[in-house]
């Protein structure tokens, strides 16, 4: 059982002052083993905050991030799964699933975690699964102002991943669950 937090597009302080309090009260240290951040934090304080939650932090660069040294994309292996991170502003058309699938194949990963659209998505295609945790603060995006704050927590357990989707809708936290398995013979790259 490995818990991985996928979170991003906070846009602190430019578009949002902080994470919603109801999210903050749940995000406590000691539970999460890895944090994957799609980018657009945008300031160091957010980076430091994530570090207090979990020392193993992986961030990719969003176009508004103060720290320009974050990589454009990153891959890591957790248990049986290869994960890739890419903010997504570089992938055009933005949010286009075919283009993202291509990035995923290039990175050769089972799960691609990407952001930029500020809209939660969990999508399966031939090359694997794409997960967009949305914006943790509900910051407005290039597309819309109507954004519910959201983030994702993945439980990687053997060949199975349980994705918990946390959304703040009308002031209440709603949690959904998504299950998927990797077949042992998959990813013949």
């Amino acid at each position, binding site marked *: *059982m490995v818990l991985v937090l996928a979170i991003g597009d906070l846009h602190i302080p430019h578009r949002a002052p902080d994470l919603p309090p109801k999210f903050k*009260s749940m995000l*406590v240290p000691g539970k999460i083993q890895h944090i994957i951040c799609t980018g657009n934090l945008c300031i160091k304080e957010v980076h430091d905050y994530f570090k207090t939650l979990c020392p193993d932090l992986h961030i990719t660069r969003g176009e508004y991030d103060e720290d320009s040294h974050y990589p454009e994309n990153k891959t890591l292996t957790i248990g049986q799964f290869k994960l890739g991170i890419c903010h997504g502003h570089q992938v055009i058309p933005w949010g286009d699933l075919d283009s993202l699938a291509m990035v995923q194949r290039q990175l050769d990963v089972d799960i691609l975690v990407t952001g930029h659209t500020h809209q939660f998505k969990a999508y399966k*295609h031939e090359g694997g699964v794409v997960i967009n945790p949305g914006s943790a603060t509900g910051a407005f995006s290039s597309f819309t102002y109507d954004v519910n704050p959201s983030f994702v927590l993945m439980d990687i*357990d053997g060949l199975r991943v349980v994705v*918990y989707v946390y959304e703040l809708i009308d002031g209440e936290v709603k*949690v959904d669950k998504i299950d998927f398995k990797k077949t042992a013979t998959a990813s013949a790259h």
Partner: protein
Amino acid sequence: MLIIHYYCGTIQISQKEINLEKLQRIASTGIPEGGNLRATVWKLILGYLPPSRDLWEKELSENRKKYAKLKEELLLTPSELARMKEEAFQSNEHNNAHSDTAGPLIRHEISHEDHPLSLGKASVWHQYFEHTEIAEQIDRDLQRTHPEMKFFSGESSFGRKHRESMRNVLLLFSKLNPAIRYVQGMNEVLAPLYYVFSTDTDEKNASNAEADSFSCFVLLLSDSVDHFCQQLDNSSVGILSTLSRLSDLLKANDEELWRHLEFTSKVKPQYYGFRWITLLLTQEFNLQSILRIWDSLISSPFGIQEMLLRVCCAMLLCVKSRLLSGDFAANLKLLQHYPEINIEHLLQVAQDLTPDTSYYRMSS
């Protein structure tokens, strides 16, 4: 002598109906190493094995199954639990259809307790994380248990497996006893039990050492588990009451020494006896000596706690001359780092003590 002793012990336990009284008498003079005598005798006298040999297989099998079930209920991660539940429901067909289609993955709404970040007290996730702190303490203590012995320490898969088994026992105990949970030192009390059962020459017994030592750990502590509960310290069942009984026992047997400790050097029992008693002397002697002492404790007709008090009193008597010539600091140092001693002699002194009359008053 040892051979005759071994023979007598083996005859006793090979009877169909074991005479526990006879067995206790033999055991109190020390159970020989070798074979599986000690493991079997301890299990018998603690009450884990019934005196009727015919019932052994059934009892063991049932108890070991119960243990496995407890582990399943209490030691699995919420992840594993959820996975097992789902595997029970899902059919294969459903699985295959699901995994071949491309498209958005299906979302299922879940309750406020069913996710890892839940803060609800009833949430299995919340309870799991509360226990990881305890588990971490247990792991730290296990690393320090008998570090000189490969059986317990070291990075071999061997040592690791033993620590993992002991961790399961202690974690399970802490979950079943929320008023006490885990207290540092319980690892030391478990160690001799687990060691003896794991080194049983009967393979089946050795491989079930974890389950057997869990049950015997509970049995061993059944009279004294309150010593671990801080809230009960001042009560009639708490450690301070027991320590005052130690004091009374010493007074009844050697008033001179008692006076010197209590008044002259002011070394009160709680300064040295707390650890002796709560941890059943596991921190005062090496493992071999502990095993011999526990033979006497477990088989004593007085009961474990009474015999323990006697051994503690004997420990004081055996270093009487050093104590009489010592002041507070010297005596404390001596008793907190008890010197090597002839264990047979110690146990003989314990055996020969005048009974503590206050005990008999309490027990009637």
